[in-house]
């Protein structure tokens, strides 16, 4: 059986002309299985949102797929008509965006917004649409009485829950979450994450979880992909990535979060700026900021993919079998 989502060698650019002025995602391969949480972490501008939009079939011009493919359950999304894609969205593939509390229409009752979304997919009130929506409210743990409320009557956390409810009301198999909790307080964030974790076990959907907060991902994701300048530089199971990070960028990103305890010591974070994607550096794009740069190799030769383990790959000269072969 093909995996739920299979991204292979995907390259995405922005721009009307060829070659496009910005290549935002380059050569990314990733799979997501049913019931699995795959986390994507990276700084702003690393291409994580572009990757998610393209994988959900939501990429709009001037963004376009330059090469590679995205298949959902074995079907290449690029071969689907806009109409077929529209049927896929919400019913099979759903997305929750950052600050999505603002996604809800402020002058419509929540129930009407659910009704519209479901009617667009052919689920009408006669089919017990209301009951299905209310059951989804139970799942995301909002009291049913809020079903008839307007969005402003809900707190920020509850609005976010309502948006998640809307995203899963048709029981999609794949859910994209793009920074779903960044605008929320820690306690609210934690309770929403717990609900999400329960739901994916209960309903069995796969999740692509995008965030800049790596420490959060280590806790909730089964696998984590670290993106830098459009490429996945390391991919590994969550714990393994935390315990044995291989790519210097992963290590640097992890040390960007001050720990909650232990002795106070100075952290340096990541010096420098991410590269300008209009004008990417040659070789490894992290080389200019890398503390372990191999002079003469990293700046000129594209880094090879090295497998540290069966499910742990890293894009770095430090680990390539052929490191040193390049002159």
């Amino acid at each position, binding site marked *: 059986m093909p995996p739920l989502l299979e991204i292979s060698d995907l390259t995405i650019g922005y721009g009307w002309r060829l070659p496009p002025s910005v290549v935002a995602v380059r050569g990314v391969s990733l799979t997501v299985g049913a019931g699995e949480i795959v986390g994507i972490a990276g*700084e*702003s501008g690393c291409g994580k949102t572009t990757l998610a939009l393209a994988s959900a079939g939501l990429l709009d011009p001037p963004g376009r797929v330059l090469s590679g493919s995205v298949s959902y359950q074995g079907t290449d999304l690029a071969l689907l008509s806009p109409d077929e894609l529209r049927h896929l969205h919400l019913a099979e593939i759903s997305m929750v965006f950052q600050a999505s509390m603002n996604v809800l229409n402020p002058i419509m009752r929540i129930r009407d917004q659910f009704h519209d979304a479901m009617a667009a997919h052919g689920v009408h009130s006669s089919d017990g649409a209301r009951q299905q929506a209310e059951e989804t409210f139970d799942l995301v*743990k909002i009291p049913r009485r809020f079903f008839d409320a307007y969005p402003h009557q809900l*707190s920020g*956390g509850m609005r976010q829950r309502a948006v998640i409810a809307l995203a899963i009301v048709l029981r999609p198999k794949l859910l994209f979450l793009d920074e779903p909790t960044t605008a929320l*307080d*820690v*306690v*609210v*964030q*934690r*309770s929403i994450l*717990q*609900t999400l*974790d329960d739901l994916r076990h209960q309903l069995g959907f796969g999740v692509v979880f995008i965030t*800049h*907060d*790596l*420490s*959060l991902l*280590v*806790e*909730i994701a089964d696998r984590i992909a670290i993106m830098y300048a459009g490429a996945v530089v390391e991919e590994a199971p969550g714990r393994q990535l*935390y315990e044995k990070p291989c790519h210097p960028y992963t290590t*640097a*990103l*992890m040390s*960007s*979060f*001050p*720990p*909650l*305890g232990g002795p*106070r010591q*100075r*952290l*340096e*974070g*990541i*010096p420098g*700026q*991410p590269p300008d994607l209009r004008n990417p550096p040659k070789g490894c794009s992290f080389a200019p900021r890398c503390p372990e740069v191999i002079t003469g190799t990293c700046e000129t030769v594209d880094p090879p993919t090295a497998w540290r383990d069966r499910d742990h790959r890293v894009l770095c000269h430090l680990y390539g079998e052929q490191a040193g072969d390049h002159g």
Partner: protein
Amino acid sequence: MVSTLGLPAETSEDPSPALEVRGLTKNYSIGRIARQKVVRALSEVDLSVEKGEVLALVGESGSGKTTFARTIAFLERPTSGEIFVGGRALPRRPSNHRLREHRREVQMIFQDPYSSLDPFHSVRYSVARPLHSFGLVPRNAEREAVEELLDQVGLVPAVDFLRRYPHELSGGQRQRVGIARALAAQPSLILADEPTSMLDVSIRLTIMNLLLDLQRSRSLSLVFITHDLGAANYMGDRIAIMYAGRIQEIGPASEVMSDPKHPYTQLLRQAAPSPENERRQGTQFEGKGDPPDLTALPPGCPFAPRCPFVQSRCEEALPDLRQVGAAHHARCVLYE
């Protein structure tokens, strides 16, 4: 180069704290006259910040931490309570002259570097403005002073930044301009209101390090407001936890983090993302996320409705801040 900007006047023999507030309260009235409600944003806060100390103030949105900073800076007039800066009381209705003095001494760094700089003003203008509005530097030395400030906040070479406008700067660079502008007034106290929460992860640390370096080299006092416990632990000598407009716990950073006393601090500590903890099956955060309604605060502990250790007396009267360690206080009946 001769420094045109000296350190703040040497006051080491003066034992009074950099900032002291007593019973600081701020209420806002909302709604039409007949149905007016009072939002209790800040209630009877007693706090002091020593000279050269960093106090990290932690709380959720709506906990009153921004109101605290704005009242200290006198951007909002406190409803009641007293503010002392460097031992000098700020009168309830300060004269214009006194207010200017206060606003020079107490500077703010704001959360959003995209809206705290005037898009029509160059970096040079923004940073120079405090210099001449407080008459700190003669006109002919102004450019040099601005360059030195930009240098100190890491905008190098400074000459390149003088003529730039905010839209030509990244978020981190804008925040550095905001810091330079605050330093230009030669303050003794800086109130930094979530200065890193709008910035990218890799930039946050560099801004925090910059603030720490400046604070140490200029022996400034800093109130660092954040909702991120990790950042509070990194920055603060002491940490104060705020909830519903009151300080619930205050103490040395390491103690508050390693041995939180107030149930609210414990909840925050457990909820904060941290890879060291395995998935917490044990703690359920369900229904614990709702912040209190500041227009209808209960007579007792405002955290009682969410507290796992709630007792009947919690709802009767507000507990006092009790000593729970050498310099560690918590407001909870568990320690009475």
